[in-house]
């Protein structure tokens, strides 16, 4: 008989299942649930982008591309970054096209982190950073951010966890799940702290196109930061292209070369059809971004007002497509709140703890849904909160 305990390394066997996964498993066994759980756009990829992909297939473009990706796609990424964020990267050796932002995060961590290194992970955040760091042999340092700072990273918080072993800081802004962003004035003190260290930065900017009212600012735009920063970008959120699995890294040549080695052995190249779609998106998709962003913005305002009326305290998120209301105050943990809401009102939202312990007391609500769907869910949340208030009396 096969002893799987011996077969599977302890490092992998002990990796925790993501909190969202556990919650999604609950959902799968229930019918007629109004879910606000999905972390992907509800738009379909714009037709002109899909058409470009179809055309590439019609012309038989079914080959591998170069490891780093089609040169034309890399050139378009460089133009896009210059056009929209005033950042310059060389398509020849500083841009690498990856299988989604996820692979980009993976190769960045693996290229920079080894045993003994500490990686600072501000939380709440997307669920993949800590497991990837662990798999790379590093030590995740969980840094809880605070609602009173609108879940922004502060200088004091960063200083409190910096050590001689710190190798990498993850900057996951605009943030999933909190919707927090880091403005120029927020990044400046962080940059000041980092300047005197050798710490590298993984700036996960997958939601860069989804900021509301304030432009996204990359840490790489600060003096002295570009040479130590890996920007992770992608097409999933900006162009509603999640299923195409396409992202990229932007990093100085030396770091790019290191990531390139991992990418070429593990992945070979990103899907060719997706790369052709990406060229079209980058050339002619700016208006699509604006259209979707306006739609998200309306829903954002709508849901924040709805939650506030219900009595769930909720700071107005400034990026991504999530709100992160406070659900404590009813004598329930986040998980209990979400589970009871699911069972009693058939409305699904994700417990804040799925994104780190500091998410306790909060829940993530995605507004990548139609207004009528959001309205139905809000009615369920309202009924549930009223029930909880009655129970408290």
């Amino acid at each position, binding site marked *: 008989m096969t002893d799987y305990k011996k077969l599977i390394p302890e490092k992998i066997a002990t990796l925790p299942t*993501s909190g*969202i*996964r556990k919650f*999604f498993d609950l*959902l*799968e066994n229930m019918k007629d649930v109004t*879910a606000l*759980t*999905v*972390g*992907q756009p*509800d738009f379909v990829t714009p037709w002109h982008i899909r058409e470009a992909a179809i055309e590439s297939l019609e012309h038989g473009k079914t080959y591998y591309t170069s490891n780093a990706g089609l040169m034309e796609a890399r050139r378009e990424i460089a133009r896009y970054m210059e056009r929209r964020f005033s950042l310059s990267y060389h398509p020849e050796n500083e841009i690498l096209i990856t299988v989604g932002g996820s692979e980009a995060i993976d190769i960045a961590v693996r290229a920079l982190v080894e045993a003994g290194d500490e990686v600072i992970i501000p939380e709440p955040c*997307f*669920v993949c950073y800590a497991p990837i760091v662990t798999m790379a042999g590093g030590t995740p340092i969980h840094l809880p951010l605070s609602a009173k700072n609108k879940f922004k990273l502060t200088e004091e918080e960063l200083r409190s966890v910096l050590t001689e072993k710190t190798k990498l800081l993850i900057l996951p802004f605009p943030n*999933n799940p909190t919707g927090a962003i880091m403005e120029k004035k927020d990044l400046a003190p962080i940059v000041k702290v980092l300047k005197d260290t050798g710490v590298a930065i993984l700036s996960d900017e997958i939601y860069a196109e989804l900021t509301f009212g304030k432009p996204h600012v990359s840490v790489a735009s600060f003096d002295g930061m570009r040479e130590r920063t890996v920007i992770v970008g992608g097409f999933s959120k900006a162009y509603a292209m999640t299923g195409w699995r396409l992202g990229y890294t932007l990093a100085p040549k030396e770091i790019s070369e290191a990531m390139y080695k991992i990418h070429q052995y593990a992945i070979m190249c990103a899907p060719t059809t997706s790369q052709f779609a990406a060229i079209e998106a980058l050339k002619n998709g700016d208006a699509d971004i604006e259209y979707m962003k306006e739609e998200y913005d*309306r*829903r954002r*305002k*709508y849901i924040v*007002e*709805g939650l506030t009326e219900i009595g769930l305290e909720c700071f107005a998120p400034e990026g991504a497509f999530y709100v992160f209301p406070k659900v404590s105050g009813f004598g329930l943990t986040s998980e209990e709140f979400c589970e009871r809401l699911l069972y009693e009102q058939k409305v699904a939202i994700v417990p804040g703890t*799925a994104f780190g312990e500091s998410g306790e007391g909060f829940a993530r609500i995605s507004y990548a849904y139609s*207004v*009528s769907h959001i*309205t139905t869910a809000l009615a369920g949340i309202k009924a549930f909160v009223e029930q909880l208030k009655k129970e408290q009396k």
Partner: protein
Amino acid sequence: MENILKLLENDSRLTAAQIAAMIGRTEEDVAGAIAEYEKNGTIVAYKTLIDWDKTDREIVSAVIELKVTPQRDRGFDKIAEKLINYNEITSICLMSGSYDIQLIIEGKTLREVAQFVAMKLAPMECITSTATSFVLKKYKDKGVIYASSEEDERGNCPV
């Protein structure tokens, strides 16, 4: 306040309170603007798109291309104003190109529509020719795709 019109064009059931929340205005402001749009005719009507193929109701639609002799001083308006009065006609547009006016006609049967064209339209003095095409299936109307799946097929990836 043009945003209000775009939102209502997309979903006329949105309430003033909902629109107000979405665009960051007060409910009173939005209700006032809508009332003004209704009063000055910018908002013409609130209707519902119905896929009649999903009901038992028998309905036949036809697109009619009319060639028309324009009237002195009134151009095409006079004939259009006359056509407006027929309940069978649901849409009237003045066109550029190879014909002058496009009508959409609805009736219970092909025969009823054909009768209308033959008995009411064709005899009109200023109409010089008609070309009738029956609608076989509607795929998209007013920007809305018919028969599209309402099911949310997005996977629950732990994102």
